[in-house]
């Protein structure tokens, strides 16, 4: 993990809002992750105590269910490796 930020304000635009998935509620935590393969990506983190997050910490990817209904919809998240 290169950096993280706990987000307190969020106002999704109608175009981005997807009725098939659960609304994103604040606060949530975003992280910048440098992948082992080189590229850096940003996405949400789960199961992370943001107070304990430190740049340089190793993270692992995780697929998380985000669908409202029985239909299976998953999205990529990151969580501390240990």
């Amino acid at each position: 993990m290169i950096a993280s930020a706990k987000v307190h304000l969020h106002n999704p635009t109608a175009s981005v809002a997807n009725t098939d998935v659960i609304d994103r509620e604040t606060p949530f935590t975003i992280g910048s992750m440098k992948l082992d393969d080189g590229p850096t990506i940003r996405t949400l983190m789960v199961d992370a105590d943001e107070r304990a997050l430190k740049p340089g910490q190793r993270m692992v990817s995780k697929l998380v269910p985000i669908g409202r209904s029985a239909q299976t919809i998953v999205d990529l998240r990151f969580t501390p490796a240990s």
Partner: protein
Amino acid sequence: MATFLKDLRDIYVVGAGWHRYQPLSETPYVALGLKAIRQSLADAAIAWPDVESSYIGTGRLGMAAGRAMLKHLGATGRPLVHIENASASGSAAFRHACIEVAAGIADVSLAIGVDKPAAVQRAYTKTGIDNLAEDAIVPFTHFALLTDEYAHEHGVNPEDIALVAVKNHRNGSLNPNAHRQQARTIAEILGGKPVSGTLTTLQCCPVGEGAAAVIIASGDAIKRLGIDAGRAIHITASAASSERAGLQSAADAAITKDTIADALRQAGLKPQNVDVLEVHDAFTVEELQYIEAMGFCEPGQAIHLLKEGAFNIGGQMAVSPSGGLIAMGHPLGPTGVGQIAELTMQLRGEAGVRQHKSAKIGLAHMVGTGAVCYAHVLQKP
């Protein structure tokens, strides 16, 4: 072989005007823009028919805002064009007005930025290509992440980065055209509403309405129209760029480094020659990153210079004496034009209580989502 402004005929800013940047009101954009234009014409002591072309920087007004505004000055039949380039819309309008006058196509051009808040969907949400968590990473979170990264990389206390806002709110309190005109303590800034990461509302720019206008003229026009040459400010460089592949660091800082280096090279100057910098400080960490990217100091040193007062009005280099985007405000279209107007006042010695003593060289810098970057150098002749 590329041609630069310095290879063309000399051009000058001869007039500047504003409508105060402010929260959304019922004032129509036409009234906002006309106030700034009329002030700039009066400042230059020229008449509207003397203006041969108009460049209108705006991001949120909708299609063809210009003629509905300019016709109130008189339908002169002269060309006008609208330029949208995200946060840098006004900077782009200024650059293209400069190019037209420098090239000799017009003798006198107007660059006007005018905007009012309105919901405008960013095009990258309509590309048909999904991005990972894109809706959750709006600009303030992008810069909250960069704040965390900067603090970790340089061993800086994130709360110290908020000192940028203390300086800029103080400058804004001296500016009657600023959106925010109240000096703030570090406790007030840190105690404000949390936004993202360590950023609080007072560390983020307010996006309201307003207008800024400047008149660009050739030396020939200055003589022909009897403009006061002693108040004309020489535009010695214009540089622009966009994000390229392969960057190893945040795009905003990387293209800032390249673009400002280009502008300073065109003007034959070093970063340390700049007396006044109007910088794209939409979020506190940006000011530090861009001062370092322009080469004024080594990476990680800007925070120490800030604490020493180096970037205060009266310091080594006055940074955002207008209040910057954090206090002056960021109404989008007007922002880049307003920077040029502030530098013009500073280099003339007409900035009043915000005056940076003996200012001779000014640099204006803007980035815009995309990402794009602009840099302009203005000099007292």
